[in-house]
């Protein structure tokens, strides 16, 4: 059973995809599909919109390159800003998921240590 992507998380997923090396649009979609193992309903257009959004905000930069098949493709690369954003958002998400999981599994959450 595949789940719909929760609004707002596609951005951080796309950044994660590009953490290691630059990829072009189709590769990113493939990576996400593979990483999710089919459990997420990933819509191609949503991914592209996320990529353009991230580029506009400066977390990604894009340039036209050539694939192995000698085809022109637009390669996306994560920027330093993007890396910082990815780290922060990942930490936030993991903490959030932890809290939600704890509440929904029927318990309270220990107060956060400041």
């Amino acid at each position, binding site marked *: 059973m595949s789940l719909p992507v929760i609004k707002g998380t596609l951005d951080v997923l796309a950044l994660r995809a590009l953490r290691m090396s630059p990829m072009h649009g189709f590769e990113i979609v493939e990576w996400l599909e593979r990483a999710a193992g089919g459990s997420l309903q990933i819509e191609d*257009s949503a991914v592209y919109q996320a990529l353009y959004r991230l580029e506009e905000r400066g977390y990604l930069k894009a340039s036209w390159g050539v694939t192995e098949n000698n085809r022109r493709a637009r390669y996306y690369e994560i920027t330093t800003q993007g890396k910082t954003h990815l780290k922060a958002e990942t930490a936030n998400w993991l903490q959030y998921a932890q809290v939600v999981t704890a509440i929904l599994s029927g318990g309270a959450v220990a107060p956060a240590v400041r």
Partner: protein
Amino acid sequence: MKRPGVRRLFSLSLRRNRWESEVEEEILNHLTIRAERLMALGMSPQAARDEAIRRFGPLDESRRQMVAAAAHREEYMRRREAFTEFRQDVSFAARTLVRNKGWAAIAVITLALGIGATTAVWSAASSVLLHPLSYPNANRVVNVNLLPGTGNSTGVDVVVSADVRLIRAWRTESRSFEAIEPYSVAGMPLGTGGEIEDVVTTTILPSFATFAGQRPIIGRVFTAAQARAGGFAMLSEDLWRTRFGSDPTVVGRALTLDGRSVTVVGVMPAALMPPRLGGRPTAIWLPLDLARDSVGYRVVGRLRPGADPVFAARELDSIAVRSKIFEASTLPFRAAITTPGETVGFRDSLLMLAGAVLLVLLVAAANVAHLLLARAITRQREVAIRTSLGASRGRLMRQMATETLVLTAIGCALGAVLGYFALDAIVKLRPPSLSELQLAHIDLTAMGLVIAASMLCALVFAVVASAGTAVRQSSLVLRGAAVSAISRAGERLRSSLVITEMALSAMLLVGAVLLMRTVIALQQMDLGFDPKNLHVIIPSLPEARYTTGEARRDAVRQVATAVAAIPGVVDVAVTDALPSYRNFSVGTLEIEGIPRPAERTTSFIDVGRITPAYFRVLGAQLIAGRMPDSTSSAREIVINEGFARKQWRDGSALGKRVRVFYESEENPWMTIVGVVRDISTMGPVGDRAAPFLYTSLSDSDSPGIVYRTDGREATVAQALAISKATLPGIRFRQHVTEKVIGDTLAPSRFIMLLMTGFTTLAMILAAIGLYGMMAYAVAQRTREIGIRMALGASRRRIARAVLGRAAVLGLGGAALGLLLAMWGTRAIEGTLYGVSRLDATSFAIGGAALIAMAVVASLIPMRRAVAVDPMTAIRAE
């Protein structure tokens, strides 16, 4: 491996923008790869296509979002790039300027001087003439004056104060006015005993505070009831701070003002300005009771939006007629509406200075343009190299424009600072009678306008410069061959710039010389009396103690007798025609034998009450007849020569009779028994032909004494002491006549000095411009001079050629300038005295000074030209 024809399955729509087509391409790529993968799994091309599109999702919507995001991104990048380029240009410009410090410094200082002077004067003009009063809706605030039918040709600020009944009628009935506020200003002694201080009080309605948009700092504005009762006052912030130490409990305290007790109800901020500009600031605000019929007031008002001042004046007149306050069917007075700025006495002079300083700015701008042109020429090699290395012409021009911009920005900043200090100095050094000048402050609109104007000038010149010296054949320039050809065209432009600068300077010179001659004429003017060692003492006789005119005259006579007894006092007279004071009657002057004109026009008629000693003490000259005899049955008067000559050209004034007619009052006929040479006790103002009637003292209500001393300092102090001893408890005012007369000249001198200062500035700038051009020309022509010398030209010939060139430029500038001045002096006609606006001597002096300046400016270049060594010159490139 790319499958051929897959692309054809997807339509490639045509888009205009680069990023739109990129977005399209990216989507297309994705769909293609997807379709390929699906076909590899065995789908048919058509099915693969459909499935690829299906899996993509909403095509149009996502395309729209992607294009929008791409457009934003492009815009942002473009802006960043432009900004980076601009930053590069600015730092390059700054480095270039630093490398040419001398040239840059001259340009910056020139611009700063021009902008500083213009900012100072324009700010003064704007803040004093355009919005001197900081009331709400100040553009609709006007003064309402009553003037006699013939207006005010006395040359001094005289108005007929409005009757309270008239003001009440105006307030109720006027439709053109949104508010009408009467007020009056008076000096009063504050305090008792030894701590008496003379303060200025302004009497206002309670509504005036709202009219002026101000609220009390502490306490309240007096109420209508308090105004009716009287005995209340508001302090000004200054008085509160200085005399009462900002004491918050001052409300409710009682003060002694003019011998009466008043209770303080509040303190008004210093920002509350009385409608009367200039003079000492108001210290105490007193309440005005409109219901009480008392002495008339001045009036200020605010017109309704869209009301026309001319129509409003006529409306006020018609209200006056309807109210039947004046019995005559034709009004003896007309309402005259003026803006506060129009009442400033030196308005014309200020406008003249504003125009003059604009000329200075133009000279400065021309100088900067000149410098830019010279720079452009010397940079031709650099431009040629850069062009041949691939720099675009647009980028180069942009860079030169940025350089001009940086230069102008520095010049403007420096100019603003200079302007601030210049205005400060002008306000501080102002002569006392130009008191409205204290309102002048740096006006941001004026400064903004000046800066905008100069930046525009500079940019235009820069564009002209870079376009005019455009390198068309960079190869030739690199080889150094075509420089002279290119620079000749530049030279024509530079010559015309220099001639313009000199023409403008010539105009200023003519103006300055005219003003100088005006001041000289004023100083040499025949006053009709001798002010040397002449002093005046006036007692302030309170009505309570001296109820009748006779009592007051007696008191003053006592003082006069006492003063006359002092050994140092040469002569004394009792009179109210005191130097620097004038008394007026208002009415029509009727001359016996000449029928009364049907249209009665009222005017101000100077009246002076004198004793027989008067003319003698003043040193005035009675040129016909005798002094009035107070014992004779007829009323006898002496008139002034100007009027006598105008009215009775054949010189038969003696024996004729005149009288002053006002409304239905028929004053008795007065017989002319003497004619005196015109006495100008207030300087050269007003119309000499206007009548001045000297009658006997018995008509005077407020006389004083005028006396002449032998010149010893102590005598004046003695006179005052004796006066105080004769009338104990009375306050006396006194002044030195010579000083007062001198003060009337001070404004003209001040304006002249400013004008001379600006002219000198313009001359220096023009001289620098000329010097720069000649120096450059000599440097350019070094080779030519060397050749000429080698061929036998004497040094004297070379020198003559250089000087001749300068003289020709000077002549051209002078001719153009004098021509412009003939038209331009029309503007300063009002400020001239004793010299015509087309005075040949002034023009000649102006022209000669300019040519002399041109010759002097060319001396150094001439010396350089003469010192050229032919051998080195010819060998050099």
